[in-house]
């Protein structure tokens, strides 16, 4: 496949694609950020890429935690108590 075969292999798009996470995580210098923002404003494919990746991360960060089931908690307590009972005391 040559570079011209499709849009996403455009050099700028490919470069952007590689840096999306660094951009989202604020790990890039100001100049590079500006380049990315300029490109995303004109290239809907890259803009979509960026926004879906952002949303993917939001979904991960937003995923809820479960409370520990009572029986799991009880067994852990028993394990720790057993452990502590077998320790030499000062």
């Amino acid at each position, binding site marked *: 496949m040559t570079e011209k075969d499709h849009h996403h292999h455009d050099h700028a798009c490919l470069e952007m694609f590689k840096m999306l*996470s660094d951009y989202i995580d604020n790990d890039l210098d100001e100049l590079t950020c500006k380049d990315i923002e300029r490109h995303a404003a004109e290239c809907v494919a890259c803009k979509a890429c960026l926004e879906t*990746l952002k949303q993917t991360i939001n*979904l991960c960060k937003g995923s809820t935690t479960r*409370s520990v089931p009572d029986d799991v908690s009880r067994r852990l307590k028993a394990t720790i108590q057993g452990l502590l009972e077998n320790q030499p005391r000062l």
Partner: protein
Amino acid sequence: MPANKKKRKSPKDKDVELIRSINAGDLDLYYDLVKRYEQKLYNFGLRMCGDSQDAEDLVQDTFLNVFKYLQGFRYETKFKNWLYRVATSACIKKRRKSKFAPDRELSLEEFLPQNEAEIPKELPSWAMMPLDKLLNRELQEIIQQAILDLPEKYRLIMVLRDMEGFTTAETAEMLNITPANVKIRLHRGRLYLRDKLKDYFNND
């Protein structure tokens, strides 16, 4: 000592205080430390192993190991990071014994659009929706499963960075890899998950 020399206590300081007391001989306080992190670790176990029995084993093994090594705890490290380091190695050991989730490398190329039709012409609506509208139980399960399907070296990074909220530097230290390596794996892990979400929303 002047009273104002006491600094405001961060959560880290609270752990350190507790650990000092335990290490000074007040062993029963160890259960307080366990309770502080029980739920966090259990959820970490669920995310890494996907199975509640494995998650329970992970919690138990980790707290047994932590107790064993607590005397050697270096107070300049954050206890939470050290705890996750112990949990992570318990996790890796456990996974090595099981046969599921084969380890493979993810390449950047596999996440590029493979043909013209895959190139988005507009912003997908799910990308712009508020989280509380989007994140229902079904989607949570899709995400959980996609994370479990990731090869371990990517899954660990995804869970530590994007779910447990550790920084790149902390994750690198925990896993003994370079920050650059963390970033590479994280990017590929995220792209993998994004593809799964794209599939899910396209078929919806």
